[in-house]
């Protein structure tokens, strides 16, 4: 179990380092600045956790709380950044692709509002008792950010499906990775108060495995980038296109 935990703690971060290198090499930091910042922060977070963990092992009475607060603050920043990434993905996958941005913007705002409301209700329902104050804060923050993340990503993927976004797009890879991570985090955050400290290790394994899968997905999307779609057969003629377009325009006018 210890070896597995150690592997899951180190391997995804190492892969995240590779992800960062590929992003820099392909110049994607300009296209996805918030995702780039998120990846960078996760690596910084890993180093900060090591720096806080080592003294906590030797002197838990003094440093365990410091370690936990580093964890809570990192989670707060990480959650904000992941929400920023989702905003970036909405722009990239939906709003920038279509002249329907004006129509879609209020719909997406409403969806985000509903998800936020549901998050607040769900967080209120999840009674976190019996844990120390700092862990309590961690639980509520972790749970709320996971619910928000999963809700927003589900909305994003639903609209991507409607707008026929290609599954090979890197933005889709980011969204799916975050989605898997968010769902496992949500389940883990909900189960932690039920199991208490004795469940920390098992829940940690689930969380770290999800993060590992998430980083692997990002890396695969980066290594095998989207290609131009290939079409075979007879192309449509201009007259056919114009005819269909006229009819479609008539259809969408009330």
């Amino acid at each position, binding site marked *: 179990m210890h070896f597995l935990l150690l592997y899951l703690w180190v391997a995804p971060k190492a892969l995240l380092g590779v992800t960062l290198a590929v992003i820099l090499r392909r110049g994607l930091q300009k296209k996805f600045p918030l995702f780039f910042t998120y990846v960078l922060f996760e690596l910084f977070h890993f180093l900060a956790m090591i720096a806080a963990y080592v003294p906590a092992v030797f002197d838990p009475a003094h440093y365990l709380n410091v370690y936990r607060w580093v964890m809570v603050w990192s989670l707060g920043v990480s959650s904000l950044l992941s929400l920023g990434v989702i905003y970036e993905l909405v722009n990239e996958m939906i709003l920038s692709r279509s*002249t329907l941005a004006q129509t879609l913007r209020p719909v997406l705002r409403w969806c985000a509002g509903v998800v936020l409301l549901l998050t607040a209700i769900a967080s209120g329902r999840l009674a976190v008792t019996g844990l120390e104050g700092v862990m309590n804060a961690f639980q509520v923050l972790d749970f709320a950010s996971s619910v928000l993340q999963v809700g927003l990503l*589900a909305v994003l*993927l639903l609209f991507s*499906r409607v707008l026929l976004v290609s599954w090979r797009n890197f933005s889709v890879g980011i969204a799916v990775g975050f989605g898997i991570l968010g769902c496992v985090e*949500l389940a883990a955050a909900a189960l932690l108060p039920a199991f208490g400290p004795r469940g920390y290790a098992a829940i940690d394994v689930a969380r770290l495995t999800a993060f590992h899968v998430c980083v692997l997905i990002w890396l695969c999307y980066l290594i095998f980038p989207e290609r131009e*779609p290939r079409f*075979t057969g007879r192309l449509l003629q*201009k007259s056919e296109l114009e005819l*269909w377009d006229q009819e479609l325009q008539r259809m969408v006018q*009330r």
Partner: protein
Amino acid sequence: MMISFIFAGAGLLGLFLILYLAKGLRSPGGDLGELVARLRPIDVNAFRNLIDQREEEYLRAHLPRREFRSIHRERMLAAVEYVWCATRNTSILISLGEAAKRSSDPTVGTAATKLIENALRLRLYALHAVPRMYVGALFPSASRAPQFIAETYDTMVRQAVVLGCLQYPARGGSSAL
């Protein structure tokens, strides 16, 4: 304790939902002839009949309440099927438009771009219409769904007409209309 397991279950369901939505994303490209062959026919007149408000009022007036509810539900569900079929056809139309965008003739590219935008608009429209039609199927006496259907009647019929015409590419859209 129970609420924790409910939320954990919600997380698991969320995972399936995310994977399901991601799985449904599009694979671009393909054989254009095969795409055209995948277009499904739409019986416009039948669809028109299903969403006709006068027809609904006639049924409401002449059938016992319980029977009307049952028939209305079936009619609405059938109408939803038509909309799904039209939406599937739209996705093919978008692929055809994307292929046409690569044409060396800039006017063809412009026409294809416009076509794609309007097809996307239609897909968004279907996303909006289908849940409301389901509401109409569940609560026929509720005013919301019938009003919505009446309000969008023309749009829906036109959608069905145009997408139905796609099954006759050899004859051209105008002859099918």
